């Protein structure tokens, strides 16, 4: 127990006044000489005990009266765990109610949504309050119906009625900070921020009040509107997509991560993947209390267009997070023309043997590569516009017109991959393809050639050690140096001329400093140069396991086909719009509710396309504006709820569920307290004591009347 005005406790000394007065009055009793003392003594014997008890009670009651008065004036209060009923009992001062309108507040507890409970509590707070009030709604946005605390509490209540649950779960801290700002100019005394939220929200690391002491201090009162009752919830926390070539062409592996945020184990929780609104694959999942589990599905994507899909679990008290959308994108078809400069009768010795394997449908599920192979002489008959990428694999001398055609092709948006080999003559190639190559070719280097490199004199092969991780080709490979690429042995490679102005970018470099893979942009097209062979003539790179993704990503980069990014964007965060076609100047994004918004091409090439209006979960479709003929598909994106909001439990409930709360709850505000003033109760007790004193002093009517005594005639 604490006191707002502890100095007034000195008033407790007043409790000694009644005994002192009693003693003084006892000394000052009226002295009367009386004849019939015997009757007084006799009566006194019978009444003295009752009289003394009554006097004692009166003295005690009056002492308590004075003590309680001092106690009440000292304004005692108790600290205890926040309790909605107790919060509602408080009144006075300035109260800013921060109403959590995140999607977890849509949880239905006993058939009543937490947001409705919060709204009722807020109304109760405002009804019982006799001071100023304000409202901050922490939903998808931080909204304040009133710029500053107002005495028009009816208007605040009306604003409360319009509050609806949003789709975000991360605005509560911002709302509390906004409440502090609103209280900056409020009069001191009873400044309070009441946060009506879930148990998890109440225990979260909310911003601390500004460090002001005394009367102007702001009290933060987080209130769990569920009143500590269990709020078990299950949710689809994430979806990841991977090609599943082992299941056949067009198959994807869908890993659905599902969480059980409740005290009870769940057996055989129904989970299914919904494709285009129809359940496609069903399954069950067993989850222990507080556990997360992954259910794997395999989905065959036959459609040539992107298909909206979702992982759905059995609905519970919070249905919003029981569904997680994603796009099932058919892999964009890459039309690749490979020019074999060194065909061999033995397949595995053929220049394109490994390229063909890497791009075959079984290994490149989801890539949808259409590979055409030709040789240098027949290149004349092929129309390059039918292809997205041209691969010059150890191609020797090209016809000049073909070289020009290639340049036109690249500048128009095509992709060109040039790999080296014994057929490549640096001088001729530089002459024909010089405008396309990132750097001019110099000569073939033999790794371990002491004459070429003193450092490599004791080695037989060079190894890739440099990886430009930020490059689009390597973006899907988290740690390229740790993969088999880093252990590839390159025995020979084409040494390039150092050219500072070539515009080339080294993606992979060898340990002797020579580039292994370079790229450059030429107008609207891209060129990649591999300084070694696509077969095993100059090294073992093609047989390394990670050669396959490297090659696929290189081709995707060259064709400017967007990568499949199945990870949904969280509501409220900007979504990257995968637009690679240089012809597209702007796109229209169709939200789940059908609303269309336009996104313009960024002013700088460095800036990514981003869509800011991810206000609701669901499937967002992206269309070029205006539509462009022959445009490769523009993949849409999915927006999902923040899985962090799916766990509504407070630290206490988590501990009961056996979770390591201490470790997980570092920084989480515990011991949230609330102040309950006791002076009301003290005054009530004072009133009761006054009644008691009145009862002790009460005398029956007629008690003073004198009845006629016998023996005296009227």
């Amino acid at each position: 127990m604490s006191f707002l005005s502890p100095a007034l406790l000195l008033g407790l000394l007043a409790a000694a006044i009644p005994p002192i007065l009693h003693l003084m009055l006892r000394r000052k009793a009226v002295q009367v000489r009386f004849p019939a003392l015997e009757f007084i003594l006799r009566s006194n014997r019978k009444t003295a005990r009752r009289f003394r008890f009554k006097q004692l009670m009166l003295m005690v009651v009056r002492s308590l009266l004075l003590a309680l008065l001092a106690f009440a004036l000292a304004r005692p209060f108790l600290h205890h765990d926040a309790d909605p009923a107790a919060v509602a009992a408080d009144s006075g001062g300035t109260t800013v109610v921060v109403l959590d309108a995140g999607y977890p507040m849509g949880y239905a507890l006993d058939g009543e949504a937490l947001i409705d409970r919060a709204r009722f509590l807020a109304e109760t707070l405002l009804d019982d309050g006799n001071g100023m009030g304000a409202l901050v709604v922490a939903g998808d946005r931080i909204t304040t119906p009133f710029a500053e605390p107002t005495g028009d509490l009816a208007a605040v209540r009306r604003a409360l009625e319009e509050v609806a649950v949003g789709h975000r779960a991360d605005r509560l801290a911002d709302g509390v900070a906004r409440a502090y700002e609103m209280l900056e100019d409020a009069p001191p005394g009873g400044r309070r921020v009441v946060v009506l939220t879930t148990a998890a929200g109440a225990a979260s690391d909310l911003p601390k009040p500004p460090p002001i002491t005394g009367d102007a201090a702001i009290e933060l009162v987080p209130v769990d509107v569920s009143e500590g009752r269990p709020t078990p919830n299950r949710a689809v926390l994430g979806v990841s997509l991977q090609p599943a070539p082992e299941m056949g062409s067009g198959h994807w592996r869908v890993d659905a991560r599902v969480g059980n945020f409740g005290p009870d184990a769940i057996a055989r929780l129904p989970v299914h993947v919904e494709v285009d609104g129809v359940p496609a694959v069903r399954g069950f999942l067993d989850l222990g209390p507080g556990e997360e589990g992954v259910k794997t599905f395999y989905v065959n994507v036959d459609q040539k267009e992107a298909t909206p899909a979702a992982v759905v679990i059995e609905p519970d008290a919070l249905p919003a997070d029981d569904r997680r959308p994603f796009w099932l994108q058919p892999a964009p078809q890459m039309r690749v023309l490979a020019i074999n400069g060194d065909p061999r009768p033995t397949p595995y010795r053929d220049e394109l043997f490994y390229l063909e394997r890497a791009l075959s449908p079984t290994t490149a599920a989801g890539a949808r590569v259409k590979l055409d192979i030709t040789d240098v002489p027949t290149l004349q008959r092929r129309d390059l516009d039918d292809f997205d990428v041209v691969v010059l694999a150890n191609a020797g001398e090209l016809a000049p017109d073909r070289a020009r055609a290639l340049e036109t092709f690249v500048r128009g948006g095509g992709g060109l991959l040039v790999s080296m080999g014994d057929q490549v003559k640096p001088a001729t190639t530089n002459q024909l393809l010089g405008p396309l190559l990132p750097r001019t070719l110099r000569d073939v280097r033999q790794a371990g050639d002491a004459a070429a490199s003193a450092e490599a004199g004791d080695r037989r092969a060079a190894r890739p050690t440099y990886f430009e991780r930020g490059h689009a080709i390597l973006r899907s490979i988290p740690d390229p140096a740790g993969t088999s690429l880093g252990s590839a042995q390159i025995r020979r490679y084409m040494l390039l001329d150092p050219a500072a102005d070539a515009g080339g970018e080294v993606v992979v470099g060898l340990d002797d400093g020579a580039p292994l893979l370079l790229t450059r942009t030429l107008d609207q097209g891209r060129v990649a140069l591999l300084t070694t062979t696509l077969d095993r003539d100059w090294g073992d790179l093609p047989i390394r396991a990670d050669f396959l993704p490297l090659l696929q990503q290189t081709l995707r980069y060259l064709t400017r086909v967007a990568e499949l990014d199945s990870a949904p964007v969280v509501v409220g965060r900007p979504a990257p719009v995968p637009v690679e076609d240089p012809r597209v100047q702007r796109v229209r994004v169709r939200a789940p509710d059908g609303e269309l918004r336009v996104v313009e091409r960024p002013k700088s090439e460095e800036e990514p396309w981003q869509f800011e209006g991810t206000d609701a979960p669901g499937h967002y479709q992206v269309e070029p504006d205006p539509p462009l003929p022959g445009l490769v598909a523009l993949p849409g994106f999915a927006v999902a709820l923040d899985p962090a909001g799916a766990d509504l439990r407070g630290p206490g409930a988590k501990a009961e569920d056996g979770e390591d709360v201490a470790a997980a709850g570092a920084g989480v505000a515990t011991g949230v307290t609330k102040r309950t003033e006791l002076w009301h109760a003290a005054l009530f007790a004072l009133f009761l004591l006054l009644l008691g004193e009145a009862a002790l002093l009460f005398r029956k009517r007629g008690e003073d009347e004198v009845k006629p005594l016998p023996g005296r005639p009227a």
Partner: protein
Amino acid sequence: MSGARSIVDAELLARLSGLSVRAGQMVEGALTGMHKSPHHGSSVEFAQHREYSPGDEIRHIDWKAFGKSDRHYIKQFEDETNLRTYLLLDTSGSMDYGRAGVPTKLLYASRLAASLAWLLLRQGDAVGLLTFGERLGTYVPPRARPDHFWNLVQVMEKVPVGGATNAVGALEHIAEVAGRRSVVVLVSDCMDFDGRLTALCRQLRRRRHQVVVFHVLDPDETEFPFSDLTEFEELEGGEKALADPRGMRAQYLEEIRAWIDDLRRTLLEGGVAYHRIDTRDPVDDTLRRFIGSR
């Protein structure tokens, strides 16, 4: 406590001038009077001897008997007689109490006794007086002379006040000295009322005396009007008691009511005339009620 008190009120005596007191039964007297004597025949015939007691006329001593027995005896005669009345006046400390504006119980009792004596003497009856407190006070033998009134008044005005009430002792003394049928008037607050007192009254009654008790009480004693915390001090013994009058008033009134009731009932059962006197009442009214009741 002593001091002269003026107990004679000329207006009071004037208001009583038309009244006369009659004995409720036959009485024995020494002089011819208005009351019927139980004895018939000549008026001065010898009846018996009685031992001398202080106050008896010396001329009534039978010197012959003294010569034979060496003891003083008084000769008594049979005749038509006057009323012989003994006034027993309580002068104990408890009688020295009176509410402001109201005479003390002793003053009231003295005025009552004096008025009664004046009435009796005026009609030729003999009146004696015995004052008593804790001990016997002054005894004035009954006389029928008119100037005897002033002897009585002088004694009553100067009688000292104090001590406990001892009505029993006074009655015992009267029982000894009252040889003939007489009227014994006890004016007291009867604070020593107990079985002994009523027994003595009954004994007097059996001896054919008439016994009248004027029970004098102050209105404070019957109404107990105190309110504040009060320390009561007894008038007779000095004992003290601290009491809350409000808290005990009902009990007190109950106690004193029962006491008065018991006293009255006991006396009436013994043939004793009981009159409770409130000191607020005029003396003449009290006497009228007394005379009217006989």
